[in-house]
């Protein structure tokens, strides 16, 4: 049993940190009215709940496809689907997939009579593949720009998850099934564990329309019990309205507000002098300073005045189909450049399960969605590399699950939690490789199987945090499925 004094000491230390406002960031905050490009982790020492490793990466750009992108039409070619097209799985030599023990990993919560089944009739690949880069990585023809960076990509083709419905979106971010409730997300753990490099900007930024209510909602980028200071902060790529309450109401003069800040600073300083033992005054003054700086710095990030026309063109800002995601990718680079730790970008929101949810019209749907993001992502990777930032920026592309080898409604695929692909690039991850395998039908992950928390653990490891060490008094990051860094892909 934990000693009483120990417990209360740990408690009060945490309370102090919390009262200071930013936990570890708060410690880092003490000297930091200017931008401080400390290496990740050097400014954190006293908490025993985070163990530090040598960091390989400083930031993460996390791209999440809402709805379940097809692994079969993207990064995991299965010629057998063409060979046995129209046959049932039982009629192929691979009928064992149906009785595999891996199927027991699925946890059905809310039975959905329409979706989330094994689809028996093999559906052929809807797109061709070719090999890319020195490693000859096979990537579908819908991803030419991403594929052009093949030598930087690490395809993890052996992912699995538990939820055959879209609660898997939440699960991908928390590592826990939707049924288990809400928990801190990977971005918030990074924010919590590392603190800031740049004090003018939030450390965990979210772009794109979030996961819908059905599937976890805002909880997919929240910090839950870590506290709101570690939540992802939604950012709009709009210099006029980038953050909630980022600017005063209409008609207030900038000069008027500057005067108010000046007086507020004076009055709070008088209070701080009257109450030298009250650390919260100081913390609140700092929160105002940071807010004021954020109010200035954030619009600047989403204004692209200083970017070349070539860059804008590369990111696709001059084409309708790619503009929105291109702006987000460019903003992501600008955020990372300024020291933001975790940039989470959602793609494919439709207010429900998501646009990638290709129960029907997979070919036209996926082709259109890939067009929106392929060029911006490809440009982001190239741009990061050209600027020497890719080594310390880990880019992750993911979706909640893959899609069934069999057809649904004649021209689509159903949800598929048993095997799918996630890719990573940069941040000390080996490029030009694929890791793990699904079976001949792309049904089960069969070699080097990885649950979603392995991706989380890999990210934390690359950022220099021992993934098993993250905890608060009375709370562990995860109680099972902790995840292990995928050592084979770490350079």
């Amino acid at each position, binding site marked *: 049993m934990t000693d009483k004094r120990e417990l209360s000491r740990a408690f009060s230390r945490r309370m102090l940190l919390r009262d200071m406002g*930013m936990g570890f960031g708060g410690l880092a905050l003490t000297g930091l009215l200017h931008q401080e490009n400390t290496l990740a982790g050097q400014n954190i020492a006293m908490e025993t709940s985070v163990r530090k490793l040598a960091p390989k990466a400083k930031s993460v750009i996390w791209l999440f496809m809402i709805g379940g992108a097809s692994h079969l039409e993207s990064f995991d070619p299965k010629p057998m689907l063409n060979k046995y097209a129209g046959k049932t799985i039982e009629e192929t030599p691979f009928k064992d997939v149906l009785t595999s023990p891996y199927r027991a990993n699925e946890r059905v919560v809310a039975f959905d009579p329409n979706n989330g089944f094994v689809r028996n009739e093999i559906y052929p690949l809807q797109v061709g593949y070719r090999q890319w880069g020195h490693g000859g990585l096979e990537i579908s023809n819908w991803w030419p720009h991403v594929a052009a960076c093949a030598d930087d990509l690490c395809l993890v083709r052996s992912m699995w998850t538990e939820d055959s419905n879209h609660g898997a979106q939440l699960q991908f971010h928390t590592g826990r099934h939707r049924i288990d409730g809400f928990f801190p997300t990977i971005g918030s753990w990074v924010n919590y564990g590392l603190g800031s490099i740049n004090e003018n900007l939030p450390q965990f930024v979210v772009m794109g329309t979030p996961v819908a209510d059905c599937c976890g909602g805002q909880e997919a980028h929240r910090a839950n019990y870590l506290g709101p200071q570690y939540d992802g902060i939604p950012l709009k790529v709009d210099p006029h309205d980038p953050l909630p309450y980022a600017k005063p109401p209409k008609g207030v003069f900038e000069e008027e507000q500057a005067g108010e800040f000046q007086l507020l600073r004076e009055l709070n300083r008088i209070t701080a002098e009257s109450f030298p033992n009250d650390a919260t005054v100081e913390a609140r003054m700092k929160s105002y300073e940071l807010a004021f700086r954020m109010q200035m710095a954030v619009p600047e990030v989403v204004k692209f005045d200083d970017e070349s026309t070539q860059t804008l063109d590369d990111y696709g800002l001059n084409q309708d189909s790619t503009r929105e995601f291109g702006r987000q990718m460019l903003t992501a680079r600008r955020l990372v450049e300024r020291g933001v730790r975790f940039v989470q970008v959602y793609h494919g929101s439709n207010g429900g399960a998501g646009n990638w949810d290709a129960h029907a019209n997979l070919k036209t749907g996926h082709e259109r969605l890939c067009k929106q993001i392929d060029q911006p992502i490809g440009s982001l990777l190239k741009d990061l590399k050209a600027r020497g930032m890719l080594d310390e920026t880990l880019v992750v592309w993911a979706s909640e699950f893959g899609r069934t080898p069999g057809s649904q409604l004649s021209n689509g695929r159903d949800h598929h939690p048993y095997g799918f692909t996630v890719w990573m690039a940069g941040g000390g991850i080996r490029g030009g490789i694929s890791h793990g395998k699904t079976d001949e039908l792309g049904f089960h992950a069969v070699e080097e199987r990885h649950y979603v928390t392995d991706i989380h653990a890999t990210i934390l490891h690359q950022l220099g945090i021992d993934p098993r060490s993250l905890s608060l008094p009375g709370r562990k990051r995860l109680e099972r499925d902790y995840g292990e860094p995928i050592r084979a892909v770490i350079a």
Partner: protein
Amino acid sequence: MASIAVTQQLRLHGADLYTSSIKPLLAEKCIACHGPLKAEAGLRLDAAKLIRKGSENGAIVAVKDIDQSPILQRVGHSSPDQRMPPMDEGVPLNQEQLERLRKWLTDGMPAPEDEPIVQGPQQHWAYRPIVRPPVPVVDGQADSQSVIDRLIAAKQLARNIVPLERAEPATLLRRLTFDLTGYPPTPNEIAAFASDQTDESLARVADELMSRPEYGERWGRHWMDVWRYSDWDGYKLELRGSQRHIWHWRDWIIESLNANKPYDQMVREMIAGDEIAPTDRDVLRATGFLARSYHRSNRNIWLDATVEHTAKAFLGLTINCAKCHDHKFDPIGQEEYYQFRAIFEPHNVRTEQFAGEPDVMKAGLPRAFDAAPDAATYIYVRGNEKQPLKDKPITANVPKYLPIAFEVRSVPLPRESYRPDLTELVKQNALTEARKRVEKAQAELTSSSKTVESTQAESAAATRKLELARAALDSLEARYAADEMLSTESNTLAIEAAAKRAAELERSYNLLESEVVFQLAEQALGKATKSAEKDVIKRTAAINKANRDLDAARIAFDKAIDAFEADPTAYTHVGTEYPHESTGRRLALAKWITNKNNPLTARVAVNQIWMRHFDQPLVANVFDFGMRTPEPELCDLLDWLAAEFIESGWNMKHLHRLIVSSQTYQRASAQSSSRFSTNAANDPDNTTYWRANVRRLDAEQIRDSMLATSGALDRTRGGPDLAEEDGETSMRRSVYFRHAYEKQMTMMVLFDAASPNECYRRSPSIIPQQALVMSNSALARSLSRRLATALSNEISQSSPNLEKEFIERLFMLTLGRRPSDSEEDSCLAFLDTQARLLIDQSTLHAVTLGAKTTEEAAEAPVMRARQSLAHVLFNHNDFVNIR
């Protein structure tokens, strides 16, 4: 790789190493099986003395050759079958942990001499009976000191601490008023309190504050946190969690607190209101506590939440930890988890109608009731609902180690409760609805016959509709008559006659209806056949569908005819018939929880109340009083308060009065003296309450006090939840706004409002987004403008120094104190500079695309500068703080 944490730990030696690093390690890995609860193999590892003693097989430490010690061999064993902890019970020790343990053993197992040995559950502080402790008489303290102060003084004395003096009257009143009502005191109240500093004045003021309806709203919000109040959540119109109209429960909470309903009674009504007073709607509202846990997608999630939070909220027990395996720290077996669940297994939620509104989507009272008295509960293997142990149904019960009677007696229900449709209210709703349909059909027929163009077919259809509506009304009336006869009349002939009539009218109605449906289907088929649709596939599909519908209508029609052949007295009873008895399990639980011999209930409640007065609980882990939680430093105070609480009749206002009247509550939070620094060194965490804690206002209080100080507050009480997006334009109190998953005011969320899912204690933070919302929200801007304007109007224009008076009054209103000289100077200078800045606005840069305020900025620069100043004070550190 060696980490900072590890090197720090290895630097520790002797007893310190044990206390801070070995004992927690063994607690985590071993003591679930080798501790006070189980002591497998006779081995306990929860105290150094017991480790030295070893197991029933002998010593576990080989002093002469440490590496031969059985304990080291077992935890470091290479075979998973031999290694401890066993595979399913925990993660093996890592290399660093093994080294750490080895070092401690090598050092000779140093540990504090006075390490207490837990004797077992009966000795655990929270499981012992509540007994009033002796109250020490401390030398030099006045006899008039309250028990709270005397118990605390004893601790302070022992640690050489002299508490701070009483806070300034203005500070104290601000603290007290916020505490009891959620609002700041008015300047007049501050002045009156300052001029009446007698011994009784504070208690009198406290009583007055608690008599205001705002008291219930303030403390209602506290208890809404603990009891997990949540408005309904869902996707579009689909209900997924909690219940529509659950605000009735919120109003019940607030009203009950204002009426000072005893705590035990409140608990009983929330868990079993439907069994206590099956037809009393005021009481039924309380069962919102159960209705709130409704979860659409999965009954197990629903019941798990009910079990978990009933135990945490009222008992401070983590029974939920025993869902998959026996509890690791408390004497609660996995079977007992399911016994506890069985108490709730039969219950469900339904919505009662209100007079005049038959549509329960629009209005109604959500309430709990036992819907399935025979529903079976099974143990789930490892908590997995796919593996129920069906050969062993579980009987409702409570954890057995708490020796209090749990007696289940079923509760017979009155007809009004099990046949709600037969109540006059519901009957009138139904009949009125049926009559309205007749009137509507009548009106349509009248208007169709007036129109010249209306075809014969149309008016025939309207006639049919009217006949149908009349038949529906007749049938409903007859069925009601027959049902009422059945339950009141003993004359079988009369009953039979009524039943015959009901059957006949119902059948006529069904026949008529199926006929109409049949005709409509025929028409639809004709239309589909003649359709001009060019797409052959669509056309064929439409015709096929019409044919199918027609077939179905034909079958229904035939059935309606055949029905006349059946038993002539068989008719459909009105509405739903629920079970005539409630199992009484929840009432038994409610009585068990509120039994005055239950050692947990009063302690847990008192701790919650204390925490909310002092911003610091007596027991840190407010929802776990189990054996993992060490005895609190002020356990005797907790026990005394708990005993007092029970003996006062679970009287919450009595407890509040006791607490706020204590000197402990009234201490200053700061004082520039050597006393402060001495105390701060001796007791940095203020565990002996030698000063008041500075605390931040809760989210609701911040918004509410802006509304109150600016005079904008709308004091309307109760009623349906207000849309969260109206929080910046509606001036109602924050507690009345929607509070559900994804449906909370942004401002509330940013200021750490309760998560609707669980919040036994809030965690106030200081984050930049709070600064943004206070400085940039339209609400703060509008209210500060309103405040400055109203205040200026109050000040006499003949005042010798207008600006000074404005500043002083503004400070009093917003911060509850006068400005210091330097503050006044700064503000005066600001008013001057700001007004001059605003004279030539053409040179200034206005925000163009921001939110719209409800209150425009003043034209005159002097006035606008004052508005600006009011806005600064809303953002002042001490506007959101209590000292």
